[in-house]
């Protein structure tokens, strides 16, 4: 046990891997205890989480906004649909996901090169144009990409080793929905470990430096363009993987699935959870998955027709997004962390005060007092007063 604690304290990679293992265990327990419907819902949460994770790295850590991640997901989804189209091919599903990631990565590189020159509203507008333009490609190449109807995704059979493993562990058959959910969540865990490592390492520090102050970053020898493009590439790759899982979950890749609404929804997840926090992206994705049925039922009970009640969920997203930016720009995770750090700092201050030192009043230096002035991705105050340093 002590050994684990040691790894937890001193190795970033170890911490991430341990978290991933715990996460995997939780996933197995949860997926084994839910039915097919919930499993598919969880698979949906997984792809939203993957895409939101990529977006939070881009927007929260690098400060670039993208409204085109839905479009990047479309590239991943269509690649998956095309690769799985041929029933004779025996391409393992992991390779399909990887290939989709690679395609989105390529597109993302092109977009990133263009986007690296833009910031703020210009970048938002350009990526919004991307989100609107991409569904048109599927329509234009209708004979190849299925036009308005899109492409059906034929799911390959559950591999024998997975069936065996499932039987060995639980003594039950693995259903297709369970298989899809496992695929989604394992993809999510792998993606998150990679993203977390990148964000904590040198690359992540550069991204943050570029976000916080372009001039200082440039003076420190960071090439702005390269940092921005690399952030966009990583983020696009995550979107591609997410699109692939989406196609497998929904068994369909169609233009109507990748509207501007999807891109904006992802942004909601990221903002709500807290820009720059992977855990926040996951919480946001969870809310996006489980809130709509709940809200829709309330609307139905209140006497709205089904179609109108279905619009209550986006209404809640939108309102929440506005309120979060106005009231708690650091999001759920960010705000919680800052208030925890603030309390810890006050406690230390009080302890120091009790020891006889009279150094200033404790209240004025509490970090969360100034937190509202920071942009949503920079809760710097949390880092400066915690003994362990920044927790990100």
């Amino acid at each position, binding site marked *: 046990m002590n050994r684990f604690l040691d790894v937890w304290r001193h190795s970033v990679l170890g911490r991430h891997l341990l978290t991933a293992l715990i996460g995997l265990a939780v996933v197995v327990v949860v997926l084994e205890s839910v039915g097919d419907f919930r499993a598919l819902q969880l698979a949906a949460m997984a792809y939203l989480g993957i895409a939101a994770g990529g977006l939070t790295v881009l*927007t929260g850590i690098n*400060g670039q*906004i993208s*409204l085109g991640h839905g479009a990047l997901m479309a590239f991943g989804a269509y690649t998956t649909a095309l690769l799985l189209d041929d029933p004779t091919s025996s391409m393992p599903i992991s390779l399909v996901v990887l290939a989709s990631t690679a395609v989105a990565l390529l597109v993302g590189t092109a977009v990133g090169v*263009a986007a690296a*020159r*833009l*910031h*703020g*509203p*210009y970048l*938002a*507008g*350009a990526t*919004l*144009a*991307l989100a*609107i*333009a991409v*569904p*048109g*490609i599927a*329509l*234009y190449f209708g004979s190849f990409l299925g036009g308005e109807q899109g492409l059906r995704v034929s799911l390959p059979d559950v591999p024998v080793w997975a069936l065996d493993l499932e039987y060995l562990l639980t003594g039950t058959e693995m259903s297709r929905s369970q298989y899809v959910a496992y695929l989604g969540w394992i993809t999510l865990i792998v993606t998150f470990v990679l993203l977390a490592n990148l964000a904590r390492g040198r690359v992540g520090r550069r991204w943050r430096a570029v976000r916080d102050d372009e001039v200082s970053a440039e003076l420190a020898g960071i090439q702005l363009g390269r940092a921005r493009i690399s952030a966009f590439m990583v983020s696009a790759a995550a979107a591609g993987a997410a699109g692939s899982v989406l196609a497998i979950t929904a068994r369909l890749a169609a233009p109507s699935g990748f509207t*501007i*609404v999807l891109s*904006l*929804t992802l*942004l*909601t997840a990221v*903002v709500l959870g807290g820009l720059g926090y992977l855990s926040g992206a996951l919480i946001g994705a969870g809310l996006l998955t489980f809130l709509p049925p709940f809200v829709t039922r309330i*609307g139905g009970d209140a006497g*709205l027709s089904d*179609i*109108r009640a279905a*619009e*209550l*969920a*986006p*209404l809640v*997203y*939108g*309102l*929440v*997004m*506005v309120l979060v*930016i*106005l009231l708690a*720009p650091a999001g759920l995770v960010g705000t919680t962390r800052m208030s925890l750090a603030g309390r810890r700092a006050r406690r230390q201050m009080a302890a120091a005060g009790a020891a006889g030192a009279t150094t200033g009043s404790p209240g004025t230096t509490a970090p969360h007092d100034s937190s509202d002035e920071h*942009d*949503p*991705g920079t809760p710097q105050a949390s880092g400066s007063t915690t003994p362990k340093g920044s927790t990100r």
Partner: protein
Amino acid sequence: MQQLVNTALGGLTLGAVYAAFALALVLIFRSTRIVNFAQAPMAMVTTFIALTLIDAGYSYWIGFAAALLSGLVLGAVIERVIIRPVEDKPEINAVILTLGLFITLHALAAVIFGNRFRSFPAPFGLRGLEVGGTTIRLTTSGIFTIAAVATVMVLLLLLFRYTDVGLRMRASAYNPEVARLLGVRVGRMLTLGWALAAVVGSLSGLLIASGGLVHPGYMDSIVVYGFVAAVLGGLESPVGAVVGGLTLGLSLSFVSGYLGSELVALAALLILMLVLTLKPGGLFAVASARRV
């Protein structure tokens, strides 16, 4: 030849609408440095208000006026209540905020007015005019569209050039601190600017709806085209926005007519990227050092 003329005329009509929308974006960007992505659903909501009135039996023009008036109120309220708190915050906050508004208004309209397509009446005929024996694709409604946008342009020009309020608005956009020192109520001018912009946005919403179908998402692509048009004109100049709108309308009309309507959005994206790469300050920019 006839197709060429018709495509060009269709493009001009469409371009006038884009110009109006771009004008709305520019008015707001000039004063608050915010691109109001929520402009599209704002215009959509006011169009639905007009449609509700028209369906209730009132005349087209009462609906028209009500839409513009509700646009005025909506713009002022949104600036005062929602945008004001983030005006001095990092620009990404404002962008996310307008997108949040985008989703909110969108969903609100779908809840209140329903999510289906509804036809919107046109003020004038939708038949093409007859010129020298052949029918050209310029309708009376099309002429009304162009005339309405031109009128708004002239009115705004007069407002900014020759009135006291216009001067104050320009001053608070140009240098808020100095304007404030000179006794201009900068906050009020910003509210007024948003209100005016929302009126112009509503106008473009009404114009694009006339004779067509409306539903909560019908303005979604217009915000992109309006943004591209505004960037073409430099995002700061009202005249640039109008020229940009007409240019974009013509280009997209040709793409739609000769290459396929699915590619219109892609063409807009391409034009946007070209402009931002080659002339980030817009088509009429004098050499400048501002970073986009």
